[in-house]
């Protein structure tokens, strides 16, 4: 799993029947400091996320287990909202706390 920020929404009416009603969002992955890291992905959402929310995303085959129909070709699902996360510097330089919502 990794952290990400919701940056957009995807509308797709022509889809596999098992995916009907699942919400699709665009997520920008974040690194351990909360900075933008890597390429955006499209993920299903089961926790009613909205634009700007910091979330954690489950990727891989396991991600479909969170959906109503687990037998769907989904490889990323938003499974939780992040209120806060901590990141401690390795050299003891002091950790920092980031809040999920800005």
């Amino acid at each position, binding site marked *: 799993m990794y952290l990400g920020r919701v*940056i*957009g*929404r*995807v*509308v*797709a*009416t*022509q*889809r*596999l029947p*098992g*995916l009907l009603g699942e919400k*699709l969002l*665009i997520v*920008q992955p974040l690194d351990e400091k909360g900075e933008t890291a890597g*390429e*955006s*992905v*499209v*993920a299903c959402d089961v926790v009613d996320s909205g*634009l700007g929310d910091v979330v954690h995303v489950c990727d*891989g*085959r396991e*991600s*479909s287990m969170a959906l109503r129909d*687990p*037998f*769907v*070709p*989904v*490889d*990323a699902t938003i499974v939780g909202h992040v209120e806060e996360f901590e990141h401690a510097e390795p050299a003891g330089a002091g950790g920092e706390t980031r809040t999920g919502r800005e």
Partner: protein
Amino acid sequence: MFIGKVVGTVVSSIKDPKVAALKFQVVQELDERNRPRNKYVVAADTIGAGQGDLVLFSQGSSARQTTLTDGRPIDAAIFAVIDSWDVNDELVYQKEGLERLGRSPAED
């Protein structure tokens, strides 16, 4: 999952019988601003996407979780055709023919 554009069809007459009934398409990956990334995949089409369609595809073992690809050597599958998407409440892409509905998803 990623957004991609169907840019070609794969024709192969010699292939494993397990994938003989599947349609394979060449998909150019796109970023959230509708710009091509320097990546493409060959994906099994489970939804009937056409040339030029913008689609969603998944990769890895998830791609086998459809009735068409179950138990078959498939690691990428197209499962939806995109109507539109928006980033930061700005419409980035809308499929041709949907404009006349006069409504963008950002207005929901």
